[in-house]
């Protein structure tokens, strides 16, 4: 079975090479004469105004976590869709119960207004 994934391995190798080779070449071939002014951090030509890290609105976190939950739900749908004919009515009903439970959560977040940005 693994031979099917050989192209993926090849792709990873080529991708790594595409990323690493230019960096190594740049290190080896390019002239490198740093001084204080060149190495100092700046932002649009000015000195940096503030720390790059800042507080995000917590609502981004809510959107991300809701995305993860539905992402997982979708992940459960893939094997189900592949074998739906084999597992028959029982498998179908079990997935419908699964979806129904999650729809409760979906309705809850919709009614709560968690999907609204304001």
């Amino acid at each position: 079975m693994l031979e099917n994934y050989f192209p993926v391995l090849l792709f990873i190798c080529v991708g790594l090479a595409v990323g690493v080779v230019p960096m190594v070449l740049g290190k080896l071939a390019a002239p490198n004469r740093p001084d204080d002014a060149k190495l100092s951090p700046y932002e649009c030509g000015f000195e940096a105004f503030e720390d790059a890290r800042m507080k995000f609105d917590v609502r981004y976190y809510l959107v991300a976590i809701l995305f993860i939950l539905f992402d997982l739900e979708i992940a459960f749908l893939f094997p189900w869709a592949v074998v739906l004919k084999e597992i028959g009515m029982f498998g179908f009903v079990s997935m419908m119960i699964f979806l129904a439970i999650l729809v409760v959560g979906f309705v809850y977040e919709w009614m709560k207004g968690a999907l609204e940005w304001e």
Partner: protein
Amino acid sequence: MNVESLVFYVFAALMIFAGLRVITARNPVHSAMFLVLAFCSASGIWMLLEAEFLSITLVLVYVGAVMVLFLFVVMMLDINLDQLREGFWRWFPFGAALALVMVGEMVYVLGNRKTAATEGLVRHAADYSNIKELGRLIYTDYVYPFEIAAVVLLVAMVAAIALTLRRRIGVKSQNPGKQVLVKKADRLRIVPVAAEKSGSDRAA
């Protein structure tokens, strides 16, 4: 050494390196990025175990979604590293004890003949489908844990909303639905005004 073991050792070495960097990197964003690398190598190892669905799900869900959340949290907490490192030696015995317990568990699982997979992996043919194998089991034999998973997801959803949803007061926003549905009568009021005499009006 065949190609498979070579690939395994590369992925395993990468994972150990990434795992070490996760805990040693000074910048928490770098730590999160090395965690991504660790997930990717773990996915490679799972693929070598012919768990193709799990391997791809690991990349999709963990690298694609969970790490985004990790980065959000790293950003949101506005971590001050010097403060974080302050209690290192105070908590060191606790952490060391925890690590020892983990190592003990691993040794127990791997060293025990009953729990360790000693007979080796059975390699499958090219047309073998791991996702079908999984699908046949999850929705029939393991239907109860499967529904429990749904409930766990539901709990997570409700908890996330309850913890982070804040109604802001005094936010002015448009509601396009209401804007479209508005009628002439809602906005425009025609006031009957008695007509005045035109002659006297002009004279004044």
